[in-house]
């Protein structure tokens, strides 16, 4: 029993969160921030599989999120809503709460497939070259989406809100929070189980030394492609959730800046540490949100001290100065991130008695 203490605690916390949201005791804004925390967790933990555990440098994770977001949106619009694009819904809208996992699965599979398309030609190269190829892939995916007029092109795509509403009509619950929490659990378990499996050992071997891995009998190409597909698939899951939380998607939301956010979270948390990256994803989301309030304060404060010229107002754009600056300071003083390549249970071995991940 004791071995499940933390598991039970986490489940209870998730249930409490859903309960609070259900009872309308959570501010809508707070609820949205919490949901985005979850999405960022999925996004970062999945990227960590490639950039942390496998030691490659993928810079285009946002692209896979984009694929997931659009495919997920299209699926749920086709499945549950009456739309110009697909006509009558394929399923009765009452089925939405039960079939929504299919939407998420479809989005993940599509993103994994996109991952395969990128991985196949590019995994003969490594390091800088792979980084460049993934950046290019990110751009290509966005350009493709922006040039398909049927799904809105640069105007973006919407209509998923109706599918979410269909779920709410069935039962009035904070559906997207529930799906996001389930998504985080699925993502963490997938990555954890994968990394503790024999395949995971292959991933570590590839990270360490590809030639050595090969002479140990590891099919390095297969291992790399498989890990990349799982990673991009989970990135797609994050995208599908994101699209449904917002109710609107635009390809530019998934540009290089998004990919960079993922990198920041992974390096902040520690490469190859699920718990570290989870902490980083939560901290990063909080930091970004906190700056919404801090920057105006800072602006007022600096004006009061007349340190800023009278006509100049600090805008929210400064967020993108402060966040990278945080990253630079972090790399200076703690380059291994919060936890390095260790898990929380390795930093505090006593935790092991309270948690079961099998």
């Amino acid at each position: 029993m004791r071995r499940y203490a933390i598991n039970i605690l986490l489940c209870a916390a998730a249930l409490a969160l859903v309960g609070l949201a259900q009872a309308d005791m959570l501010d809508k804004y707070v609820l949205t921030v919490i949901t985005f925390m979850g999405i960022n967790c999925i996004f970062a933990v999945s990227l960590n599989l490639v950039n942390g555990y496998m030691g490659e440098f993928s810079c285009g994770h946002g692209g896979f999120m984009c694929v997931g977001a659009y495919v997920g949106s299209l699926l749920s619009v086709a499945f549950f809503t009456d739309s110009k694009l697909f006509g009558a819904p394929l399923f009765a809208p009452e089925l939405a709460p039960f079939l929504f996992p299919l939407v998420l699965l479809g989005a993940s599979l599509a993103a994994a497939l996109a991952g395969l398309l990128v991985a196949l030609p590019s995994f003969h190269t490594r390091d800088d070259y792979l980084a460049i190829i993934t950046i290019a892939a990110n751009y290509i995916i966005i350009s493709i989406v922006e040039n398909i007029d049927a799904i809105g092109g640069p105007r973006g795509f919407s209509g998923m809100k109706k599918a979410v509403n269909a779920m709410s009509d069935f039962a009035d619950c904070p559906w997207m929070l529930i799906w996001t929490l389930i998504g985080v659990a699925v993502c963490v378990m997938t990555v954890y189980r994968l990394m503790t499996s024999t395949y995971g050992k292959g991933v570590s071997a590839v990270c360490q030394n590809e030639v050595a891995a090969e002479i140990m009998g590891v099919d390095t190409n297969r291992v790399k492609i498989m890990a990349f597909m799982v990673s991009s698939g989970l990135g797609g899951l994050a995208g599908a959730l994101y699209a449904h939380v917002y109710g609107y998607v635009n390809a530019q939301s998934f540009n290089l800046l998004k990919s960079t956010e993922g990198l920041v979270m992974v390096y902040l948390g520690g490469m190859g540490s699920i718990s570290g990256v989870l902490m980083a994803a939560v901290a990063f989301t909080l930091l970004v949100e906190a700056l919404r309030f801090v920057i105006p304060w800072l602006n007022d404060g600096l004006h009061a001290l007349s340190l800023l010229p009278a006509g100049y107002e600090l805008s929210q754009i400064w967020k993108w100065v402060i966040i990278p600056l945080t990253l630079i300071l972090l790399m200076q003083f703690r380059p291994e991130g919060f936890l390095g390549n260790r898990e929380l249970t390795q930093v505090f071995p006593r935790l092991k008695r309270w948690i079961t991940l099998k």
Partner: protein
Amino acid sequence: MLRVSNLKAAYGKIEALHGISFHVDKGEIVTLIGANGAGKSTALKALMRLPPPESPVVTGGDIAFDGVSILDMPAHRVVSDIRMTLAPEGRRIFGNLTVMENLQLASWSRKGENTDKEIRRIFDLFPRLAERARQRSDTLSGGEQQMLAVGRALMTECSVLLLDEPSMGLAPLIMYDMFRTLKKLNAEGLTIIVVEQNARLALQVADRGYVLDTGEIVAEGLAEELLHKPEIKAAYLGG
């Protein structure tokens, strides 16, 4: 068992092996000796079918195992199907893993089987590794790292072991120990191909030897004979 015929191998446009032929029978220790740049390591990498650019591309000739060409096999299949593996030059152990984890990783091709027995066998062979089982492997001494590289190769349950410069950077005593262990493994049925700078030592342990010079085989024969050939003595054994 292993037959290399007229093998040509190149790094890009530079041909490193100009058509070498040799064979290895089951249960033998065969050594390839020669000066720096003679193509010894290149031959082993080609045998292992390791991917370029670090390893050469075979441009001609054939490598056959039990009569079947292995030229189309990737390295991991040479390990899992042919049961041949390499303890590479410079060891290439997984530095930030412990000794134990290194050995466990090496049993990758045997997915999930219990490997305690094999690990115990490695520890019997190299008792020093047992003492250091929980230590990060990049903190080991050079000799211990070489033991780990050999132990790790043996964890793949290979029947043919290729060794690239196992004596590199080792003190003479440890070097002799290493070769004694190889001899012992050979007596238990392991076929060994060893590439060595220390030609005298290699020829003392081996059954047969091939002498390479700038990508060609210039002499071959029983190790005993090579040891006493005047021209070999002069060129490779220091008179």
